[in-house]
């Protein structure tokens, strides 16, 4: 136990362990790729590096099928087009991003949530020493890179670096769209600290809402986002808009995933046998974005952001992913990166019984679904209904239950009680 605690007392040992973990995975990956027909490297990494190669030849990254990201990503990976070991440059970049994100988490926990060095390191290790996180980045998935942008965004807001906040927000939305949900919580959180008197006129209150910080974030994020879009549009034209934005809005990819809507989307989009009439609620699933956006981008930010910004961002992201029309396991990383801020004072830690049972439920939900998915994909059993559908609904309910607990914690100010609030 003493060794355990001394391990977490030094940021140097934790960081070294985090680096060693990723270096081991990277080297192992090189070994597996060289000697096995089954690759360690993520399929997406081949998409990115192919796109980088197109860029290096002066072509559009969208010449590569299924490249659905900003051209910036392909540019970032330009060195992978050089020969030899440079191919792994992107994985190193993602892994370094991972570690920087973990380091920033530690700083946020230490400075903005007032945790002791040891506790801060323990909670940051949820990210830093998490084998799943290390695997994802060293296999070459770009989700790890997103972690560094989003964590930097949180750090910038908490330290009230307004222009940097705006820049990072605009950049993150350009990079992956979904971080737009943080706009409302960041703007709402950025008040000037003084309570407005209830007697103030609506105009006075509105004037008070529009403070310089909020204007700064709004303007700088909008300029960054639009600036990047204009540059990319000028450079790569319509395919840029089509693949990095519109595709995500109109995608018709019904292959099974964790989303509760998945079976319904498959059912309602598949062509009907003529003459047969399946009773349908007039394609209500088209309205799926309403509960998702209402909760994640409006209600949760407005009700909770002022109490605890980082935990609110956790709840927002979790709702966004849970209510999304498409949901794969890499999306889980989007909210896992906020867990270190929420957990320290949460009911999940205060009552291990609650914490462990919710964790077990979360894992069981996935395992049940994955088992049905395996039966479908590899054994060819038609498990769409009830199997896959029922498990996606069960997993959805489990996620919502956890969210209920998280939201109540934030409302009760459990987050605020665990450290200094600015």
């Amino acid at each position, binding site marked *: 136990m003493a060794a355990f605690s001394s391990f977490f007392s030094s940021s140097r040992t934790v960081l070294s362990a985090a680096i060693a973990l990723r270096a081991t995975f990277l080297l192992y990956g090189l070994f597996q790729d060289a000697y096995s027909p089954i690759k360690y490297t993520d399929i997406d990494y081949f998409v990115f590096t192919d796109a980088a190669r197109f860029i290096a030849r002066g072509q559009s990254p969208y010449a590569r099928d299924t490249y659905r990201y900003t051209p910036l990503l392909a540019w970032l990976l330009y060195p992978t087009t050089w020969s030899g070991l440079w191919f792994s440059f992107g994985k190193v970049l993602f892994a370094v991003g991972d570690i920087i994100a973990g380091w920033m988490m530690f700083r946020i926990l230490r400075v903005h949530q007032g945790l002791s060095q040891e506790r801060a390191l323990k909670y940051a290790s949820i990210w830093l020493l998490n084998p799943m996180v290390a695997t994802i980045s060293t296999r070459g998935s770009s989700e790890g890179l997103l972690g560094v942008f989003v964590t930097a965004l949180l750090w910038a807001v908490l330290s009230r670096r307004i222009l940097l906040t705006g820049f990072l927000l605009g950049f993150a939305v350009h990079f992956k769209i979904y971080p737009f949900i943080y706009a409302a919580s960041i703007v709402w959180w950025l008040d000037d600290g003084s309570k407005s008197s209830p007697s103030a006129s609506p105009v006075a209150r509105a004037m008070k809402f529009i403070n310089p910080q909020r204007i700064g974030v709004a303007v700088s994020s909008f300029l960054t986002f639009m600036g990047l879009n204009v540059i990319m549009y000028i450079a790569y034209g319509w395919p840029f808009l089509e693949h990095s934005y519109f595709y995500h809005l109109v995608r018709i990819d019904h292959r099974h995933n964790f989303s509760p809507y998945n079976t319904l989307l498959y059912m309602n*989009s598949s062509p009907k046998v003529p003459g047969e009439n399946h009773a349908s609620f007039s394609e209500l699933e088209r309205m799926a974005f309403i509960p998702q956006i209402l909760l994640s981008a409006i209600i949760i930010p407005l009700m909770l952001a002022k109490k605890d910004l980082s935990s609110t961002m956790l709840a927002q992201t979790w709702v966004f992913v849970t209510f999304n029309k498409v949901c794969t396991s890499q999306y889980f990383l989007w909210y896992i990166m906020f867990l270190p801020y929420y957990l320290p004072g949460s009911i999940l830690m205060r009552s291990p019984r609650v914490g462990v049972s919710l964790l077990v439920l979360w894992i069981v939900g996935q395992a049940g679904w994955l088992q049905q998915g395996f039966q479908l994909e590899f054994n060819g059993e038609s498990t769409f209904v009830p199997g896959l559908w029922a498990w996606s*609904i069960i997993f959805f309910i489990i996620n919502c239950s956890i969210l209920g607990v998280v939201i109540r914690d934030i409302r009760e100010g459990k987050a605020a009680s665990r450290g200094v609030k600015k």
Partner: protein
Amino acid sequence: MKQRITYIVQDPDSFSPEQLVVKGSSLTLNRVQAAKEQRITVGLDELPSELKKAFEQWHELHIRWASSSPYPATPPFTSRVTPGLHVFFTPHKDQPEGDLCRLLHSVFGSELKCASMSEASTKMPILSERFSMSTTSQYYSHLESLSTLVGFIQHKVCKSKACRQAAEALLSAAYVDIDYDAISHALVLNAFGATGPTTGYWDETISFESEAHSTEVGVLTHEKNPDPEDIGFGGFLTVLGQDQAPKPTRFQTPTRHYPLSSAAANYKTSFAHPTGLHPTLSLAFPSSHLTPPDSTCKLHAYFTLPSYVFLDKYQFNDALYLASHNLKRLRSIAGATDLEAPDWVTSQWGSAALFELAIPKSSETQNAQPEWNVTIPLHLRYLPAADNSHTAVPVPWPVVFWACRAEQGTKMSVNPFDRLHLGYEALFGPKTRFMHIPPIGGGNGTGGLVEWINVPVLDLRKSQWVELGTIGTVIVAFLGLCWAIFGGGKGKAKKESAKQKKKQ
């Protein structure tokens, strides 16, 4: 109208000239054991105006249909295509495309997946630009039988009983080609039967019809070739109404499709079960007969994959991965290669892929396993929900051949039996010789050259609660979270946390 009928006697020893009898202007064959090719050339003006108009809309149009029953190939008829209906065509420049789908629906059957040819067809890849013979577009559909074509010819084209009988004979053909091009302004129908209709013999009389209807009949045997790249024939030619007796003949010709010397070579196609959503197609060869006929020869497989099954070209970039499947490389892929779209949004007919296959190293052939397996990982698209748990779909066997360098490529077209537009020649240079490996029948349950696989689909018989269940759950969860955010949960939560504190 011109007709050329060629019989190729399989076993020269079984044949004697007495089996051919010319009486007046007709020729009778007695128990001739042979393969038969019947080629009819019709001027476009001799066709019903409806058909004439339909064909004139194209610069060239080549239809290839092959039966799914295995058949023995007899030189020079050794070329093969995948079972089903292939259409290769080039539209006129600067002219709107004609309604080819309507023509195909009325001639071959309304079940073909073809709403508009501009959407259903795919562009032909051309690896060898000097090979200018290729058409621009390609279309394919599974088609079990030519019964609709036979009915169409009998009702819309035929004027005589002989014509209707000849049309009927198409039902037993191993393959049928229909060619049209704007330059010759003629339609050529070519039907190949591997064996005689009953007990493998041809007992028939071919009669002279009219001056406008010339008929030439050849009965030939394959002779050991004098030149390594030529094939030679000897036998008898008879022009009906002109020749009083069969005329002896002997000739040799360069040939694009060259017979394979090793008669025991063959392959079998199957799928590893369960097929799931990622079926793996396997080609099995007897390893001992898998030595290249010539040092320039490379083994290839050409796949014609309907839209519901596809391959991910990016999987085939890695040498180790290729080697683990006994593949050399993916030489070409064209068509519907979207990796995500479900079948119902894929309007193209499918995709065509050419693989170069690995062969056992010569040191391995002696003591290695008797069977050499090449595997191709494929993927299935989602098929529409149905009142069933699975939908069965046909996947035709690929064609497998050695592609070898030839010295005299350009002369191959002088071969009177030259067969072009099979989809894969354009992927090779003009100086290429093809030596086909014959498939041996198998097929899961069909005995033919088509594999049927069961694709799991959403079963509509079990899905009545999906809509209500999904929407109900989402609404309840939404309201529950709203209650957690706004509602009276706070008081209760406080109580609970007080309890927690007591416990602690």
